[in-house]
């Protein structure tokens, strides 16, 4: 497996986000919510406030660090939900075939036809704004591609010798799926999930903009950016740093995903969006 420069750049950026998230409580100079002194609002970057302060007088640097936690949570949890739904449906559909396959296929087509942002918008409207709702909304949104890939991988793996051997040995369906098939399609699923993390972070920002994201005081990058759009002229730093954070982390996820994909199967890039 040869991993290119893109992969390492992506891995580097992602590691940075992960480190920022994990280490935030130790390396952040302030509390992201409580250390708000309105007397210090909208200060430009200096030696105390590296990225300046926002309209509430909170340290933007601190909030960016804590924001990494939220972005990672959004990215990882939503993609775990996506992958579980997609893999479960896709694998069983491919393995069992028949009416179940038709049903899953039909439902996948339905989900593909509804633009993800609109579906997420609808789910958020039902559940109300906030982190848990967002995780559910994004988790329910993007599984169709994963499902398709899982299904086609299962179909091709099913015909392979060792799976058929396991069948003749009388192994249960579930056992075969989890021990023989699942491990062999982890690669593409992982690629989809990595790329999905990037789009989840972007969706969070878009939903924030539409008033349905994670809402303050959580320092989510999307809501920071949304709040800051009013300040773009008075205090550009309040808008620039969250924007950069989103851009770099999504870039990281995308490069990582691309790199993984290219090393796993260079042809896959023509088959997935």
């Amino acid at each position: 497996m040869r991993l290119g420069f893109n992969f390492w750049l992506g891995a580097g950026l992602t590691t940075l986000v992960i480190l920022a998230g994990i280490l935030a409580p130790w390396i952040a100079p302030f509390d992201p919510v409580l250390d708000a002194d309105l007397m210090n609002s909208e200060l430009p970057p200096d030696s105390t406030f590296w990225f300046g302060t926002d309209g509430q007088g909170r340290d933007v640097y601190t909030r960016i660090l804590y924001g990494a936690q939220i972005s990672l949570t959004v990215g990882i949890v939503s993609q775990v939900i996506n992958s579980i739904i997609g893999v479960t449906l896709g694998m069983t559909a491919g393995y069992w075939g028949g009416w179940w396959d038709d049903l899953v296929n039909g439902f996948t087509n339905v989900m593909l036809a509804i633009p993800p942002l609109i579906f997420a918008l609808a789910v958020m409207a039902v559940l109300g704004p906030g982190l848990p709702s967002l995780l559910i909304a994004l988790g329910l949104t993007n599984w169709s591609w994963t499902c398709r890939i899982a299904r086609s991988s299962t179909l091709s793996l099913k015909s392979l010798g060792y799976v058929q051997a396991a069948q003749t040995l009388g192994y249960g369906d579930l056992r075969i799926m989890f021990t023989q098939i699942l491990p062999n399609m982890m690669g593409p699923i992982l690629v989809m999930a990595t790329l999905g993390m990037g789009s989840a972070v972007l969706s969070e920002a878009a939903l924030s903009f539409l008033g349905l994201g994670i809402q303050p005081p959580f320092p989510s990058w999307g809501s920071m950016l949304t709040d800051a759009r009013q300040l773009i002229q008075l205090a550009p730093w309040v808008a620039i740093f969250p924007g950069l954070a989103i851009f770099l982390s999504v870039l990281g996820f995308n490069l990582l995903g691309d790199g993984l994909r290219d090393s796993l199967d260079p042809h896959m890039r023509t088959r997935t969006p």
Partner: protein
Amino acid sequence: MLKRLTLAAMLSLGVAAGALAAGERHGGTLVFTAPYGSSFATLDVQSSPNTQEEFITQAIHRALYSWDSNQNKPVLELATSEELSEDGMVHTYHLRKNAVFHNGKPLTADDIIYSYKRIANPENAFPGASFIAVIKGAEDYIAGKAEEISGLKKIDDHTLEITYTGTINPGFPLMQNTTVIYPSNVEDESTFGKNPVGLGAFVFKEHVPGSQVVVEKFDKYYEEGRPYLDRINIVLMAEDAARDVAFRNREIDVSILGPTQYQAYQGEEGLKDHLLEVAEVYTRNIGFNPAFEPLKDKRVRQAINHAINSPLIIERLVKNKAYPASGWLPISSPAFDKDKAPYAYDPEKAKALLAEAGYADGFEFEVTASPNESWGVPIVEAILPMLKKVGITVKPKPVESSTLGEAVTTNNFQAFIWSNLSGPDPLNALRCYYSKTAQSACNYTSYASPEFDKLYEAAQQERDPAKQNDLLRQANNLVQDDAPVWFFNYNKAVMAYQPWIHGLVPNATELAIQPYDEIWIDETARSSRQ
């Protein structure tokens, strides 16, 4: 406080006076912005309760009364004079004889009766029905129990007698955009939604859904010499940042400013001299639910009022685009008490009050909040560290704007942050603390005080405005002391306008709504607009 108000009023009068001195100029196109949403729901404004549609109403339609921003009260619009009966319940209106609808029909009493019946028609379920309900017999008509509204009586074509249910000032309900007058000779009522016909100074020209409404000068408008403008494009611009760019780019002639833009514009040459400010009749507050144990205690509610440094929030976060609230009624209200001080910022006193109430260790409560920047989550974020210092933990409970109303009116909250109408009529504004007003109507904090009720009932009966205001002032102070809410601020609405625009007025009910027929454009406007 009052000084400040008169100053603002004088400033705005200065705008008008300057206009007169310069000499009004006819012609030109005004590009006006409608900032409260990205579409006009309908052009049938009788059916629409949205502020957004008032922009169209103002141009195309006229109601029996209208709001006079300079006198700060409703005045007769479609009638030249009125006579009151002894008991004050029957008004006889002498209608304008020169008022003509855009379809050529002259205004008669029939049109008003027709319109009020249409608004109150139970099959229509129009929001304005509640305003018509002040007319005697309207309740029965709304309920479908009567064929006619008994309080409406045509004397002749230009004389109309209306009997009201009480000694109320009918100007407030009958100046609303949902009570405008339509011509009675339009066969197909469904055309009102696409082709509005009114009495206003401008004729409907075009509606590009989601984009703009274009109106043009009406030649037969009843006010001599009006309007000045040939054309108005009322464009939809809900996004503040986009409006800011468009205004700086001189693509639009007026813009309603948010706090940050207000601060930015104040600091810029060329922009700072063209800001129109007014104290609007909205009170921003956090309402407490007495059903939630800690908030039941008056001392806790007072403690919260003392613990929050409202002036600081207003200065830094709201960028001075508000006046600190010293009670429910706003500065422009006739019953406003200029001598009553707001709650002082005093964390020590707050702690003492909390300890007294048995909450020395503090407690936790949720504030249901929408994303609004002036009365939503950002404000809760700002009070969060302040209340933390006296031991109270606040948790914002974010909801969509559209569900805030439902959460509050179903009493499903510990506290909520909102902006509420608190004027211009003080009697109507204080109805929201009258214990007989339902929680779901507007007594959101389930306020019940026998003392208040006594004062309020007395005010309802009082016919001398000065005495009535005095009673209301006392009632208002009572509310302030009981602190059913955290009194945050009264909105200061700010409108930026291009230097070539003249004739704007400080409308305290809603600054964005301007009398288009008084606006004119001078020759410095870009040539495409002249």
